[in-house]
């Protein structure tokens, strides 16, 4: 069965430090890959997505993610974290080339930023 694993439930990073959030997936073929962010009381906002091609994907708010097929991973990174980045982050997958199929989400990683 398709699944997404986010191994870290909660991460605390100092403001200005770098960040890496881990995501591993289990899927028959290379799926479409996504990272969403959810701030308290808000809906999910798309940070970035990977469909094919260049394995390093740039997103909004200074985030990037790297797809590694050999590790079935799609880790999210940011070189310098800001206090406003504190939120919950979700990795998600969808089957490739199937228009409209719903997303399968991981359980999320809560990011806290310390000053």
């Amino acid at each position, binding site marked *: 069965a398709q699944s997404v694993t986010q191994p870290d439930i909660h991460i605390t990073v100092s403001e200005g430090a770098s960040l890496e959030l881990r995501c591993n997936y289990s899927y028959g073929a290379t799926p479409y890959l996504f990272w*969403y962010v959810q701030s308290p009381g808000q*809906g*999910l906002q798309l940070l970035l997505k990977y469909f094919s091609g260049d394995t390093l994907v740039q997103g909004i708010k200074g985030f990037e993610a790297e797809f590694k097929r050999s590790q079935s991973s799609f880790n999210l990174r940011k070189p310098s974290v800001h206090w406003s980045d504190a939120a919950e982050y979700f990795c998600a997958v969808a089957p490739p*080339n*199937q228009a*409209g199929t*719903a*997303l399968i989400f991981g*359980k999320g990683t809560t990011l806290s930023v310390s000053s």
Partner: protein
Amino acid sequence: EAGVAQSPRYKIIEKRQSVAFWCNPISGHATLYWYQQILGQGPKLLIQFQNNGVVDDSQLPKDRFSAERLKGVDSTLKIQPAKLEDSAVYLCASRGLLSTDTQYFGPGTRLTVL
């Protein structure tokens, strides 16, 4: 461009009562989803519509949950009767028809069942 609208934002009911949630997707988006997000978990699909037809409702507890999307635009999700375990955030999302189109989420309705 207006985003996905949902109402109400918060709802508190007692078990065995009924409740309804409303969603207005982004204009022109043919596909609409309802997800359930239980505290500490990622969203899980309840039902997916394309226009006003159901594409996937395999994870919808049909003995108590129902949903409709009249005229292929707005949608309502109903729970009757509610159980304690239905306490969650109910997210509505919409997207265009291309496989690469982004799925946009509304702010959600936080349901508490007492």
